[in-house]
């Protein structure tokens, strides 16, 4: 019988992805384009939030959108119909975007002249948190109907995000959602997280969020 021997591998399986993501970050820094990765559950309202937010900042900031879905191109079509430059990435069953897919997406976009590119990641609170897309800003959208227990169930997502936007606050009166509990739980996982409460439908709180985003972009592209 052949002898069993030990081979040292010493490789992180995400090392390739992280290298590529760092490369994208330096490339976009040089091109003065801020890449933001927006993540949420399916149906939280990413597309609606983006359409409203971009409408409010587009006179000052040139924005492009990279839509990612397992299938269909409805989201990109909605953006383009509003005059927002957008491309659709179909992940073909993959539950998240990685730096490779983002690189391909950037290749298909006219990046020059854009101040901000927003990735609308696949709706999912697990996998997108694990894979670096090359974004400088990671944002998470949580909608009131999903419940206030999400930081307890998906701690990694909350711990990697720079900003948390709690949306559909127009549902608060109909639900037992505890806003203070969400904030406390998110801050415990990530003391630096910036939190906004908004309703994309009524427009409540949108300005504070878009002002913050505008400021982040203007500081970055300086």
């Amino acid at each position: 019988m052949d002898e069993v021997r030990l081979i040292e591998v010493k490789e992180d399986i995400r090392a390739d992805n992280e290298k590529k993501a760092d490369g994208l970050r330096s490339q976009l820094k040089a091109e003065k384009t801020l890449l933001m990765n927006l993540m949420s559950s399916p149906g939280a309202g990413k597309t609606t939030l983006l359409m409203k937010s971009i409408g409010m900042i587009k006179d000052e900031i040139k924005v492009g959108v990279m839509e990612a879905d397992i299938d269909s191109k409805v989201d990109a079509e909605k953006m383009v119909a509003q005059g927002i430059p957008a491309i659709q990435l179909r992940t073909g069953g993959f539950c998240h975007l990685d730096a490779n897919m983002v690189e391909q997406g950037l290749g298909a976009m006219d990046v020059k002249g854009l101040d901000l590119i927003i990735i609308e990641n696949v709706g999912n609170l697990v996998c997108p948190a694990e894979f670096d897309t090359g974004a400088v800003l990671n944002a998470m959208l949580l909608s009131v109907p999903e419940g206030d227990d999400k930081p307890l169930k998906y701690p990694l997502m909350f711990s990697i995000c720079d900003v948390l936007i709690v949306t559909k606050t127009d549902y608060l009166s109909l639900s037992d959602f505890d806003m203070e509990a969400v904030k406390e739980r998110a801050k415990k996982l990530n003391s630096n997280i910036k939190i906004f409460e908004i309703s994309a439908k009524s427009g409540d709180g949108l300005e504070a969020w878009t002002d913050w985003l505008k400021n982040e972009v203007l500081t970055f592209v300086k």
Partner: protein
Amino acid sequence: MHELPVTEKILDIIVSHAQRNNVQKVVSVNLRVGELSDLENEWIQHYFDYLAKDSVAEGAKLVIERVPVVMHCNGCGESFQVDVKAMKEIQCGNCDSKDYTLVSGKDYYIKDMEVI
């Protein structure tokens, strides 16, 4: 679903090391997976068994060691371990600072493998 792309990557790395080392069969693989990763050991093995069929790694057993979440305190420079599931406020045990960066806990590291 999440386990599939991760497991594919693990298999790619194993197979490339096996080719470089004239391996006939991979017996077991030692992995370190961070506590923050939502992977189920059982499912990684299921996916692996499926993906590794007809490869040098067919039938290999994955031995998974969980890596605790460790933060580096930006206040005093000490490192401290965190139990994320406890949902207690994360702060440095040494200086009480809440300014910290993640050192480990997100890992997907292939340590070594036993081969024939």
